[in-house]
């Protein structure tokens, strides 16, 4: 056995995910090679489509914004020891809440109105995931299964409302809700002076995502309740023994996570789609699961990982246009990445031991055995 050194753990935290992603990209190259495409060309296109020029940077940043929030929906409950993967459901409900609030309160407008529609989305998402947490704490229902089932139910509710009671009669081909009023929408960070900068017309959702990740990280690392939450995640029995309010902390983490996913859906409506329709159901919740796992459920690690996978998603359309790969190619890459990330976990704590040669050591003889 090698002796673990102080720099081993942080180095592994960086090397293992990076190595897993490289392995996934390599396997993806092999995969497209079997389909008759050049792996090198695919890798180059992946990079170009994600971070090649200002336009692709804008595209990647745009896609990264909701991923940060849906990743938090997995990460926060995960730090409390729960595997919640219902982010997609919370996201679509958030979109519904955002688009639906003006139906109930007709006089929302301006900045306060924007905050109100976003809050409506976040609250719906929070309640939805908190339900999965509550079912686990009080009924012992496996939260992974229940959150995913709740996700399917949420999508059905979404379609029901969008194509039924809340449908805008003016939306003929694509059933949608009534578009949000101009004053409620979220604009670009740079305003109308878009230009060719990296930010271009990237909307404020990016800032919301970054702030949420930062706040979640600060909360987990530096607050008493955040610390208590991590204790619960580490050992729920011990947490209960020292008198921590386990149930409340778990519900809180679920509600916060669900709120983030709901917020993601609300931002998608307020900044991108303008009304709730099936374009919102784009698998952002599922990609968020992967982002959170790659970031090892660490909020501060989420933004760069989200940017990377947002970039891959952006590059997917380039792969489709240029060399005719199916749009699911990004899903395949994500699947490979997920498998390798999990497999890399097995190497944690042993990575540096792998490269150490067992040199013959000079054995110190016991004092009595000399002579």
């Amino acid at each position, binding site marked *: 056995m090698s002796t673990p050194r102080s720099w081993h753990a942080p180095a592994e935290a960086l090397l293992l995910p990076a190595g897993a992603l490289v392995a996934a990209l390599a396997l993806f190259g092999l995969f497209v090679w079997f389909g008759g495409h050049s792996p090198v060309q695919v890798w180059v296109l992946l990079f170009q489509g994600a971070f090649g020029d200002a336009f692709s940077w804008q595209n990647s940043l745009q896609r990264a914004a909701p991923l940060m929030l849906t990743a938090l929906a997995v990460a926060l409950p995960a730090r409390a020891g729960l595997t919640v993967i219902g982010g997609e459901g919370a996201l679509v409900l958030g979109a519904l809440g955002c688009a639906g609030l003006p139906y109930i309160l007709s006089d929302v407008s301006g900045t306060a109105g924007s905050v109100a529609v976003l809050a409506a989305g976040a609250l719906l998402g929070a309640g939805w995931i908190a339900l999965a947490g509550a*079912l*686990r704490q009080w*009924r012992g229902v496996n939260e992974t299964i229940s959150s*995913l089932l709740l996700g399917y*139910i949420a999508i059905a*509710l979404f379609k029901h409302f969008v194509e039924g009671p809340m449908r805008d009669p003016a939306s003929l081909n694509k059933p949608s809700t009534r578009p949000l009023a101009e004053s409620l929408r979220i604009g670009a960070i740079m305003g109308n002076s878009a230009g060719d900068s990296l930010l271009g017309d990237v909307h404020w959702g990016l800032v919301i995502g970054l702030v949420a990740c930062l706040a979640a990280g600060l909360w987990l690392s530096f607050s008493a309740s955040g610390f208590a939450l991590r204790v619960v995640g580490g050992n729920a029995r011990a947490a209960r023994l020292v008198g921590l309010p386990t149930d409340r902390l778990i519900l809180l983490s679920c509600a916060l996570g669900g709120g983030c996913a709901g917020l993601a859906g609300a931002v998608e409506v307020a900044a991108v789609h303008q009304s709730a329709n099936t374009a919102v159901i784009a698998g952002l919740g599922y990609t968020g699961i992967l982002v959170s796992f790659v970031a090892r459920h660490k909020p501060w690690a989420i933004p760069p990982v989200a940017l990377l996978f947002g970039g891959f998603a952006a590059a997917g359309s380039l792969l489709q246009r240029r060399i005719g790969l199916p749009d699911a190619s990004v899903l395949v890459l*994500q699947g490979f990445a997920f498998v390798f990330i999990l*497999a890399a976990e097995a190497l944690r704590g042993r990575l540096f031991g792998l490269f150490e040669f067992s040199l013959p050591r000079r054995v110190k003889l016991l004092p009595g055995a000399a002579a």
Partner: protein
Amino acid sequence: MSAEIGLDLLLAIVGGAVRVGTPFLFVSLGECLTEKSGRINLGLEGVLVFSAMAGFGGAYLSGSPWVGVLLAGLSGAALALLHGLLCSLKRVSDIATGIALMLLGAGLAFYLGKPLIQPQAPQIPAIALGAWSASPGVQSALAINALFPVGVALAGLLAWGLANTRWGLVVRMAGDSSDAARALGYSVNGVRIAATTAGGFIAGLGGASLSLYYPGSWNEGLSSGQGLIAVALVIFARWSPWRCLGAALLFGGAGAIGPALQSVGISGGYYLFNAVPYALTLAILVATCSPQRAVKGAPMELGVST
């Protein structure tokens, strides 16, 4: 609602119970075998989608539905083998691996299945149990997927095999006490990998029945959570293959409500009726699980009931 419509509706739901329930049956049997060995494979959702695509492709290219069925089973087994191997690594949780397989299976299926969306493949034949009746409604309701009897036989075989054979005992021992299995010289990981792979093969047959019988085509929306529902069904069926059969039929019936209502001309709330199986699964989980004790009949090594 007149009596005639009511009867039509009932027939459609009964017929639908078998038609929609067959994939549930296979996936829940596969999951039952996997969980008996002490592991959860949430990835059967991905297995279902991937094997549906593979089965459809096999049938389309070879011209024989049975080649498709075999290919579906084999591809399901291959994905499940990956799950089994990954979970045997240190510090890799079976839940997380299942989530990864869900994404991977769907991604591979959508990618490889792109050229299969248009064409027609030869279908699995139906067994006409309703030939005695003159009514076309009865006939169509009782035309049964030829895989369904295979599934029933498999349920019986599994129930008997788990209880009475040496292999069944080893699988159950790996699931109930890995220490005992190790003490008797069995490799717990080996047993679990084998059981997971076999479970994947069985679940793959469910995929074939999706793409080669009902709905009988390949598209990206073919499975939306049926695999996951089937995993939850196993808890409801308390890990008994025979009860899996009953649960699958019950859920098939629930899943048939939406299309059945639509077939008699009621289309309001279509999406809500389609969500009935999910809501029912959740309700059943709430009813059967308890925070105080493990669910009765659960393999001891299984972490499904917290």
